[in-house]
């Protein structure tokens, strides 16, 4: 089984996928394409977007679909179908919230950018992180979101949280002890530590 990830030479939407390969200890071709090559490649992609994952002769598109597929393949989905569904639920919710991060981060109009960032920090960030914090505090198993083993959802969400810390400020998780501890635990996972020795997680 050969895997090839096609994405830009940034963290962005590709990094959670790279981190899932890392957590599983599975090799893949990390095909990082240059901006100037994108127009040519774009029309060959199923939905004219990347990331795209090539698996032998087949192609899979859509970031979260790719993460979920690899999560199943590499046994990073918990023990039951309900665990697998909880992985989906937490990623879906986090992604909904992350749209608000993207709205301010990519806004080009300076005045709107300030307005969106303020709203993000005052409303959406606390709304989301307080719920995840509460979930992590109340859970009966150790360390991770769904069960006591690492899942693809843990890797996905922790990687996005890392992106937030690097762009919005390292202190962005500080008011949420359980969330901060969770993110650090994921990044300290042995196979992820191995990956981080030789790779930088870019934004």
């Amino acid at each position: 089984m050969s895997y090839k990830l096609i994405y830009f030479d940034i963290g962005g939407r590709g990094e959670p996928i790279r981190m899932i390969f890392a957590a599983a200890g599975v090799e893949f071709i990390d095909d990082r394409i240059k901006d100037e090559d994108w127009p040519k490649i774009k029309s060959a992609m199923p939905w004219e977007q990347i990331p795209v994952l090539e698996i032998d002769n087949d192609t899979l598109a859509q970031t979260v679909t790719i993460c979920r597929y690899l999560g199943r393949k590499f046994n990073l989905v918990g023990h039951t179908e309900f665990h697998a569904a909880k992985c989906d639920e937490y990623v879906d919710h986090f992604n909904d919230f992350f749209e608000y991060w993207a709205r301010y981060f990519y806004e080009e109009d300076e005045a709107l950018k300030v307005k969106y960032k303020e709203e993000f920090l005052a409303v959406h960030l606390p709304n989301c992180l307080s719920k995840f914090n509460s979930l992590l505090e109340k859970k009966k198993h150790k360390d991770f979101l769904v069960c006591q083993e690492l899942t693809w959802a843990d890797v996905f969400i922790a990687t996005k949280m890392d992106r937030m810390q690097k762009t919005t400020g390292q202190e962005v998780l500080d008011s949420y002890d359980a969330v901060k501890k969770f993110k650090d635990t994921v990044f300290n996972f042995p196979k992820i530590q191995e990956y981080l020795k030789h790779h930088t997680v870019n934004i």
Partner: protein
Amino acid sequence: MAYKLTYFNMRGRAECIRMIFAAAGTKYEDNRIASEDWPAVKASTPWGQIPILEVGDKTLAQTITICRYLGHQLKLSGKDSWEAAKCDEYVDAVNDLFNEWVKYFFEKDPDKKIKAHADFKSVPLPKYLSKFNDIQSKVDGPYLIGKDLTWADIFIADKLNRLQETEGPDVLDPYPNLKAFKEAVHAVPNIKAYVSQRPPK
């Protein structure tokens, strides 16, 4: 297994879930709540949103997560993990299209709405519908992924129905395979029976 779906008394985000239950012929409690009861219910939901699905004593949230979970449980997720992944990919893609639809449909400024609608009709709408039409033309059978109906077929057919409601019934006419697909899903006996007796909106 006791299933209870909680949503407003409308189609909205829950309709695809109701159609999946219908297709599988599986009973569930269709808990439709009144708007005035929403604040009390909201506080009890995991993320302050509905639909939610109660499965025995456990709760699942997020529309597509619920659809996918039921798809697996009710054997409507394709024949193997690859077809299951294709279900996910196509639903994600139709969601991308609907994120563009939302941008115009809920625009409050009338002039901006007209422009946004024109933009929607000129770029993302034909892009996604022609890609789906092409995908369907290569499948051996009436659906999008394999020989058998999947939860993704139901989800996407319901979304195409919504498009016909807002863009006009002829919006699928330039895409004959896709039009036939949408009709094939709605002609599945269990779905046809459900659709014929469901509340108007």
